[in-house]
C-alpha cells in the first residue's frame, strides 16, 4: 500500500468514481502512481524551487567533466571513482536546469522505490511511508545547496543491491556469503560508500526475525575487512578515503547539507539497528516472557512501532505536513539568493543581479555576493552612484588585488574558490598576468573546468602564445557546455593566429600593464597608477581604483584622481565621489581641486550637514551602535554612513 493510497480496503468506493464521472485508475497502474507523483514532486521541486541551475559551477566542489578516455580513465582506478565520474557528467546537465532535475528526480524515485522494495523483503508488516524518508532527506540535501550528488547516487545501487541480494538469497551460508562478497566488492569499487548501505541492509535481512544472525554479523565484519583490504591495502588510499569513499567526511568537504546527507546514510543504518534489536528480542524473549517461534518471526519480520503506523487519514496528513515543514525548514533561502546572484552574474544578466540583491540578501552577505553586486553596478554604470546602498566590505570589490601587502593568503584563496567569476572582470581590466596566475591555481586545485580553460586560452591569445591557447581550447572542445565556443575560437586562431583582428583581444592587449611590478602587493593608488599608465582610458581600472579607495577611506586618492574624469568624458561627478570630496574638505579644511564644468551638488553638502547634525549626539557619547541604528534609515546608502559606521575590520578584512 502506498502513501498516496487511492483505495483502501474496507472503505466504500466514492459514488463519483462508481458513476464514472471522474477518472478511475486501472488497478494495474496503482503501483506506479505513487512513484509517478513522487517523481513529479521531486522534479518540480528541484527545477522550480531549488532551481538546479544554481548548482552549476557554484562552488569549488563542483566537478569538471571532459569527454575522452584520458579524462575518464583515472576515475576507474580507485573505489568510488566510477560514481564520481557519473556525478561529474550529471552535474554538467545542471547548466541546462530541467534535464538535471529530471535525472536527479529519477534517482530520488529509484531510491524511494528501492527502499520500498527492501522494506517488503525485510518486513512485510511495515507501512510504506518510511520508504519516503530518504526521498525527503535527499530533497532536503538539495535544499541546502551542497554538492553531494555522488553520495546520493551511490545510495541507489547500494539499496537495490540489497534488494537483489534478498531475491538471490538461498538461506545457505556457503552460497549467500560469496554473493554478498562479490556484491560488496563491485559496489565498493563502483560507488564507494553505497557498498556500506548494501552491507548494512544485507546484514539487516539476516538479522531480521532471527534468520541468520551469524551470517549478518559476518557481513558487517567482512564489509569492514574488504574496505580496508581494497581501499587501504590494495589501492593505498588514506584511511578516510578507504573507509568513506565519496562520503563528505574529509576536512575539506562541502559542509552545506553535509549533516542531512549523513542522516540519509544513518537512516539505512537504522534498519540494521532495528533488525539487530528484533533478533535480540528473539534471543532474550519478548516482554511477556515468551519467545516467538522462528518461522513466524521470519514471516512477520521486524515489528513496527504502533504509534508510527499512521493508518488514519489525519495521521497521513500529519506526515505530509511534517515532510513539507522539513523541506521548508531545510531550504536555504539566503544561499539561494547568493547563488542566484552568482548565476545572473555569470550569464551577464546584470539587471537580474541587482533585482535579486534588492529583494533581500539575508543577514550574512558573502564577499562573493557583494563582488557580483559591485560587478553588476559597474556594468550598469552605477558603481560610484549606488555601491553603498549594498553591504560592502573592503575586500569585495578587488578581492585582494590592489589592497596592499596585507591582502595576501586568505584573499588569494578566496579568489581561487571563485575561479568561475573573477577572471573575466579582471581580464576586462587588463590584469592578464593576475588572471593567468589565478586561473592556473584553479586549474591545479579544481581541475579542468570549462571557464578556467577558456580564460587561460584568452590570456595566452592576448600574450601572443597561440600554441598554448590551442592546448586549452582543444581541451575546452571536450567540455559539454563550452565546446562550441572552443571550436569557434580554434577556427579564429586558424584564420588569424594572433587574433590581430579581434576587437576584444585588441582591447585587452591595449589595457595590459606594460610596467612590471614584482612585489608583495600594491596599494590601491600604486595599482591604479600602474594600470592607467598603460592605458589612461581604461575606465574600468579608474572606477575600481576610485571605489576601492572609497572603501579604504583613502579620500586623498579619490580627490587626487578626480581630474581623470575628464579622460572619460564625464560631465558630472558620481555621487559617491562627491560625498568623498565633501568629506575630504570637511576633514582637511582644504578645497578639493575640481576641473572646470564639474561641480559638487548643493544637495550633497546639505546631506552632509544633516548627517553631521544627526551624528553629533552619538559622536559625543561614542555610541557607535546607537548612531548606526538611528542614522541607518536616512543615510545607510550614503558614503557618509559607510565612512562613519562600517567597522575597520570589515572594511579591510
Amino acid at each position, binding site marked *: 500500500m502506498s502513501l498516496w493510497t487511492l483505495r483502501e480496503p474496507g472503505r466504500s468506493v466514492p459514488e463519483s468514481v462508481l458513476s464514472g464521472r471522474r477518472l478511475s485508475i486501472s488497478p494495474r497502474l496503482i503501483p506506479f502512481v505513487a512513484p509517478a507523483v513522487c517523481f513529479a514532486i521531486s522534479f518540480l521541486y528541484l527545477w522550480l524551487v531549488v532551481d538546479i541551475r544554481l548548482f552549476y559551477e557554484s562552488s569549488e566542489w563542483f566537478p569538471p567533466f571532459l569527454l575522452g578516455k584520458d579524462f575518464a580513465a583515472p576515475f576507474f582506478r580507485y573505489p568510488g571513482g566510477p560514481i564520481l565520474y557519473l556525478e561529474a557528467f550529471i552535474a554538467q546537465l545542471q547548466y541546462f536546469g530541467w534535464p538535471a532535475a529530471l535525472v536527479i528526480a529519477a534517482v530520488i524515485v529509484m531510491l524511494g522505490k528501492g527502499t520500498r522494495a527492501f522494506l517488503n523483503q525485510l518486513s512485510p508488516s511495515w507501512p510504506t511511508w518510511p520508504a519516503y524518508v530518504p526521498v525527503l532527506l535527499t530533497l532536503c540535501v538539495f535544499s541546502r545547496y551542497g554538492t553531494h550528488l555522488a553520495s546520493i547516487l551511490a545510495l541507489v545501487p547500494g539499496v537495490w543491491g540489497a534488494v537483489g541480494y534478498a531475491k538471490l538469497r538461498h538461506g545457505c551460508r556457503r552460497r549467500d556469503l560469496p554473493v554478498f562478497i562479490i556484491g560488496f566488492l563491485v559496489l565498493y569499487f563502483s560507488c564507494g560508500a553505497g557498498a556500506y548501505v548494501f552491507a548494512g541492509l544485507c546484514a539487516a535481512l539476516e538479522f531480521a526475525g532471527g534468520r541468520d544472525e551469524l551470517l549478518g554479523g559476518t557481513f558487517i565484519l567482512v564489509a569492514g575487512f574488504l574496505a580496508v583490504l581494497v581501499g587501504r591495502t590494495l589501492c593505498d588510499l588514506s584511511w578516510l578515503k578507504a573507509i568513506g569513499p565519496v562520503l563528505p567526511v574529509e576536512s575539506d568537504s562541502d559542509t552545506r547539507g553535509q549533516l542531512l546527507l549523513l542522516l540519509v546514510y544513518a537512516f539505512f543504518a537504522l534498519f540494521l539497528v532495528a533488525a539487530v534489536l528484533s533478533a535480540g528480542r528473539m534471543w532474550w524473549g519478548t516482554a511477556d516472557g515468551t519467545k516467538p517461534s522462528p518461522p513466524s518471526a521470519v514471516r512477520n519480520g521486524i515489528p513496527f512501532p504502533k504509534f508510527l503506523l499512521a493508518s488514519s487519514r489525519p495521521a497521513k496528513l500529519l506526515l505530509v505536513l511534517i515532510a513539507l515543514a522539513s523541506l521548508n525548514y531545510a531550504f536555504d533561502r539566503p544561499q539561494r539568493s547568493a547563488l542566484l546572484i552568482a548565476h545572473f552574474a555569470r550569464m551577464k544578466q546584470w539587471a537580474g543581479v541587482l533585482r535579486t540583491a534588492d529583494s533581500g540578501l539575508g543577514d550574512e552577505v558573502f564577499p562573493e555576493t557583494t563582488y557580483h553586486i559591485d560587478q553588476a553596478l559597474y556594468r550598469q554604470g552605477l558603481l560610484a552612484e549606488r555601491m553603498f546602498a549594498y553591504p560592502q566590505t573592503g575586500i569585495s570589490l578587488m578581492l585582494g588585488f590592489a589592497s596592499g601587502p596585507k591582502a595576501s593568503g586568505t584573499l588569494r584563496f578566496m579568489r581561487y574558490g571563485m575561479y568561475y567569476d573573477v577572471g573575466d572582470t579582471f581580464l576586462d581590466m587588463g590584469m592578464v*598576468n*593576475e588572471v593567468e596566475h589565478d586561473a592556473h591555481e584553479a586549474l591545479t586545485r579544481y581541475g579542468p573546468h570549462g571557464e578556467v580553460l577558456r580564460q587561460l586560452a584568452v590570456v595566452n591569445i592576448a600574450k601572443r602564445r597561440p600554441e598554448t591557447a590551442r592546448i586549452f581550447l*582543444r581541451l575546452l572542445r571536450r567540455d559539454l557546455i563550452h565546446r562550441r565556443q572552443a571550436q569557434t575560437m580554434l577556427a579564429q586562431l586558424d584564420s588569424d593566429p594572433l587574433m590581430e583582428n579581434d576587437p576584444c583581444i585588441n582591447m585587452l592587449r591595449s589595457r595590459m600593464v606594460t610596467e*612590471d611590478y*614584482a612585489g*608583495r602587493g600594491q596599494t590601491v593608488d600604486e595599482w591604479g597608477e600602474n594600470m592607467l599608465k598603460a592605458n589612461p582610458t581604461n575606465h574600468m581600472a579608474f572606477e575600481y581604483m576610485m571605489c576601492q579607495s572609497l572603501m579604504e577611506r583613502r579620500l586623498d586618492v579619490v580627490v587626487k584622481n578626480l581630474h581623470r574624469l575628464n579622460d572619460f568624458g564625464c560631465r558630472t561627478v558620481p555621487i559617491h565621489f562627491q560625498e568623498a570630496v565633501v568629506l575630504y574638505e570637511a576633514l582637511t579644511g582644504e578645497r578639493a581641486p575640481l576641473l572646470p564644468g564639474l561641480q559638487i551638488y548643493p544637495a550633497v553638502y546639505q546631506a552632509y550637514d544633516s548627517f553631521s547634525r544627526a551624528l553629533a549626539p552619538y559622536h559625543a557619547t561614542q555610541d557607535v551602535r546607537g548612531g548606526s541604528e538611528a542614522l541607518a534609515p536616512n543615510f545607510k546608502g550614503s558614503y557618509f554612513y559607510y565612512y562613519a559606521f562600517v567597522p575597520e575590520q570589515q572594511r579591510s578584512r
Partner: protein
Amino acid sequence: MRPVLHILRQYALSVSAAVLACLLLPGCDDVPDLSEITERREEVPQLEPACAGVTIPPNIAPINFRILEDGTAFLAVLAAQGGEQVCVGSGDGRICFPAGSWTSLLERARGGELVLNIAVRNAEGHWQGYLPVTINVAREEIDPYLVYRLITPQYNVWWDVGVYQRCLESFDQVSVLHGDKFGQGCTNCHAFSGGNPEMMSIATRANQRSPYKSACIVVRNGRTTTLDTPWGYTSWDSTGRYAAYSLNKVRQFFHRAGAEVRDVIDLDSEIAVYDAEKGEVFTAPPIADPDRMETYPCWAPDGKTLYFSSSPIPWEDRDRMVPKEYRDVRYDLCRVSFDSATRTFSGLETVLSADAVGKSILLPRVSPDGRSLVCCFTDYGCFPIYQPSSDLWIVDLETGDFRELPVNSDQSESYHSWSSNGRWLVFSSKRGTGVFTRSYISYVDEEGHFHAPFILPQKNPDFYDTYLKTFTVPEFTRGPLRIGSRQLGKAARTRDRVSVVLPVTTMSPDKTKKASADASSGPWQSAGSVRQK
C-alpha cells in the same frame, strides 16, 4: 539532452572512423605501393611532433606522430637500410607504429638511418607523396628509464604532484611517489647516484593541512631512511656515499607585466653534504660562505670535485621580499676539491665568472667522462625554468671554453641530465608554448656535437596537444626502481624519522652563520650528526 546526444554522436563518429579505417586501410596491401605514386609534392610533410632529422637511440619506444597535411587517408612507410620496412595506414593522420616491428627496424638501422615516406590521399582520391624524411638512429643506447615529476604549472598551490618512472623502451609509466600518498604533499628534487636506481633521494614537502611533515627519503639498496629535513637540489657522488645538497631560503614572487608571471629568488643558500654511511651532515666555508649563495651542487664523476653555482649576496636583509636588487643577482660557476677520506673541501676556484659571460650560470651537470659540463645561462637569478632567457651551454672543463648548444629555442631550456654513457642529454624545454615544460632528448656524438632533439615519445601522437602537466627534473636511470610507490609513500608518512642536525649557518634559525664559519679555521669539522628521534 544535447550533451548526451553529443557524446553518442562523438563516440559514434569515432567508432565509424575506426571501422572505416579498418575497411579502407587494413594494411599496406590495400594501398598503393609508394613507387606507384607518381604525384609527388616537393616538400617535407608536416609532422607533429616533428621528427625530421632527429637522432634517436636504438632502444627507444616508437616515435608516433600525426601528419598535419590535409587528406582523407594517410600512409607512412618507415624503412631501414636493407629493405626492411614498416607500413602504417591511417584514416585520420595519426601514425602509430607497432612496437615489435619498430624494435626490429631500429635494430637493423642502428648506427644508420631510417627513411620515412609519407603519402596522403587528397579529397579527389589521388595519392600524393612527399619528400622523404630521415631519422638518424644512433649506435649507442639510451638509459632505459627516465624519472620525472609531473605537475601542473605551479604558482602558489600544488595538487596532484607525482614523480614517475617512464620506460623509454616502451610507453609504460609507473608512479614512484605521488603526493596523495602523504596528504597531497609535493614531491621534488629526486636524485640518483650515477643513474643507479638503487641509490636515490627524493624530497617531500608536506601540505600544511596534512598531519605529515616535510622530509627527505634516502633509498640505498632497497632500504629507506626518512630524514626530517627536505633537501634542495641534490647530487650524489658515484659511490652513493655522499650527497651534496643545497639549503635554499627560496621565495616565489610574481610579475605584473611580461610573458612569465612567476619568478623565484633565493634570499640565501648554501650547500651541505650528507654522509650516507655515517649518517652525518657536514659543510665547509667554501660551499657555505656567509657572504655568498651556493646552490646546484654537482659532483664530478670521480667524486673529487664538487661543482656548484655561487653568487655574492647583494642585499643586507635576508628576509625582505622582494629585494630591489633581484635582477642583479648572477651566479658564477665554481668548483672545489673534496677529499673523501678526510671529508674536507679545499681549493675553491671560479670556473666561469658571471661577469665574464654577462649571465647567471646555473644547474651545472658534469658529463660522465668528466670532460665537459652543461649548464644554464640566464639573464639573472637562480631559477632557469621561469626565465625565458635560459639556454643550455657547454663548458669544456679542460680548456675553459664555452659555447651555446644548438638545441636551444626562444623559450626556457632548463633542467638537464646526462645518460650514463654520456651520449644522451635529456633537458626541459618550454619551446612552442612558453608555458608547458616537456622533456627533450638530444644525441651527443663522439665529437661532442649535439644533434637535433626529439620530444619524449608518447603512445598517443596527440598526447601533448591537450596535456596540461609539465615534465620537470628529468633524470635517467639505468634500470627500473626496485622500491615501490607504496614503500616510498610509507616512508613519507612515517613518524619514525631521522633527525639531521645541520651545521649552524645563516640558513639556521638563529642566523649565526658568520660566527660558526669563523670558528672553523682549519679542516671543517663535521657539525652534523644523526640521531634517532
